[in-house]
């Protein structure tokens, strides 16, 4: 594994929002790497900072939000230090993003064709219009849209939800990016359509060796497609590691609770192992571990100190003071 060079390195990223009510530490000390061609799942509940992490990488954090610390290095270059022009040439070209709601991403008054050609020309001013059109058509065909030649003349509202998401995937893949950030790309879709979209993404990323950061609240989706997983809670990554060992043997109490919360046919009739309480307000985080008020294993140490990531081997990191103290269950 040492030979693989990370394509994206996030080190101690801090993205804070300076609101009237106080400073919201939406992302507070997040570190992880993504290797070339790797699929990383970023999992968390609402308010955990998973989307803001994605936005920070894309340079899409707007005021009152600001990246106040840490480094994001993409292929060795620091994104946080880039000028807006440099960022622009990166976005949609070497890194692209897919959002939850494709109706919000696509311009409703432009034909799909126009939007796709625009995205190609923005990064390659030399290309002729007919060439760009041909590339757009092929991209639509790749994501499984039948009759792309006719369909690219249509407006976004003429597509169904699943088809629209395919169009935005096609746009994201247009310039053969090295990294795609997908923020809840299948959450708004029906089950059979979700299956189709996951299938296409999996296939495309395998063929083009594109790295994928899949942001979602749904642990089960990530379990089936990711190589590695990062679990976020209240702005921090509380556990990260290879998918197989993390899912089969979660170490952080939050990861365990999250997995116990997922209903499945194997545990019919038994109550779900719920996590009591709710996510604390980011405006007013307790000192110490942010999970303390919901944790069954809480001790005095949890109340006073913020747990540092502990390396438990097999490339796994866990932010919990109880890990390593006792044999993990």
């Amino acid at each position, binding site marked *: 594994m040492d030979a693989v060079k990370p394509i994206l390195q996030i080190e101690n990223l801090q993205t804070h929002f300076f609101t009237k009510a106080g400073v919201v530490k939406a992302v507070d000390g997040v570190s992880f790497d993504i290797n070339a061609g790797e699929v990383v799942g970023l999992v968390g509940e609402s308010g955990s900072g998973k989307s803001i992490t994605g936005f920070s990488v894309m340079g899409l954090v707007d005021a009152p939000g600001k990246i106040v610390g840490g480094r994001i290095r993409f292929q060795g270059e620091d994104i946080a230090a880039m000028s807006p022009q440099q960022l622009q040439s990166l976005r949609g070209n070497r890194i692209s993003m897919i959002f939850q709601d494709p109706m919000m991403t696509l311009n409703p008054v432009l034909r799909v064709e126009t939007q796709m050609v625009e995205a190609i020309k923005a990064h390659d001013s030399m290309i002729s219009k007919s060439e760009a059109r041909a590339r757009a058509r092929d991209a639509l065909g790749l994501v499984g849209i039948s009759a792309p030649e006719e369909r690219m003349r249509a407006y976004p509202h003429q597509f169904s939800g699943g088809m629209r998401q395919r169009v935005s995937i096609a746009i994201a893949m247009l310039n053969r990016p090295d990294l795609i950030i997908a923020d809840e790309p299948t959450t708004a879709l*029906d*089950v*059979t359509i979700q299956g189709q979209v996951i299938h296409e993404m999996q296939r495309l990323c395998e063929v083009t060796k594109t790295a994928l950061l899949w942001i979602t609240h749904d642990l089960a989706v990530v379990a089936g497609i990711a190589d590695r997983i990062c679990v976020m809670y209240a702005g921090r990554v509380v556990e990260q590691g290879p998918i197989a060992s993390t899912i089969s043997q979660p170490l952080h109490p939050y990861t365990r609770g999250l997995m116990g919360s*997922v*209903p499945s046919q194997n545990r019919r009739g038994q109550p779900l192992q719920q996590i009591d309480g709710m996510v604390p307000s980011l405006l007013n985080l307790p000192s110490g571990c942010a999970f303390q008020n919901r944790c069954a294993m809480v001790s005095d140490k949890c109340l006073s100190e913020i747990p540092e990531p502990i390396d438990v081997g097999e490339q796994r990191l866990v932010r919990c003071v109880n890990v390593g103290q006792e044999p993990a269950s």
Partner: protein
Amino acid sequence: MKPILTVSNLSKDFTKPLDLIAKLLNKVGQDNKEEVVHAVDDVSFAVQRGEIVGIVGESGCGKSTLGRMVAGILSPTSGSVEFDAEQTKASDLPQALQTQMIFQDPYSSRNPRKRVIDIITEAPIFHGLIARKQKNEFAAEMLQRVGLDPDTLQRYPHQFSGGQRQRIGIARALAVSPELLVCDESIAALDVSIQAQIINLFVRLRDEFTLTYLFISHDIGVIEHISDRVIVMYLGRIVETAPISSFLQTPNHPYTKALLAGVPRLEVGKREYEPVSGEIPSPLDPPTGCHFHPRCPFASERCQREAPLLRELSAGHFSACHLNDEAQP
């Protein structure tokens, strides 16, 4: 035992009236037809007392319309909903009270300008179930039953989190001591860990209040966990209904199989999604014969022509598929 709820040949059509221009054009000889959506098409089923019946399907399958007709919010175009109230309870109360509905969005289904205490007690006071002076006591007890602090009685809905608001919605529904709860995507808007809390609450309340549930959801994991019996709908029709054990072990209808195959599972190891092809057709213009035939891998010429009828395969397990006729001479 007599079922608590008997739905027979229930249908609901929504008609889009012709606009002025179409009406005028009709006068001069054009033939513009009104557009009709058969949201629910000749649906029959029965629910036993104490049962949790899950209704599952994708968007546009009519599951919410069905739930609303059962709850008495929509009146059916044809067919009937019969409700068998327990004799011991005051039978002069309106039937509408016996069936209560819990909605998806706990915020838009509450009056934001009413305090929690009024939200919970308005209906029981109006119907004379409790005296006005018992209001405080009653509301406090209801809140405790759903796991909320009775001190929060005087607060407004916006002062609660999503999960707490859903608990208020449940307390409001239970306040008129209904026998049947229709839960329409009641947990879809909640975070995973909060979902688990509410699912556990639903199961606990069933025993405490001897409730019967009609649990409508697109989430098959949730349906598998909670239901005793499952009804699968596709474009307004029931395609399969089965006790949970046969639903999981021997799903019969190709659509049910496709649904089950498409669910992301929390399992170790990458999985290949082999999605069913095609889109969900528009309910305005459903395919002829079996609605599923354009997406079905086993479709034959007969499927295009003739709509299959529900047919019993084993005790309580019905499926509407022509393949079953061929299998058994």
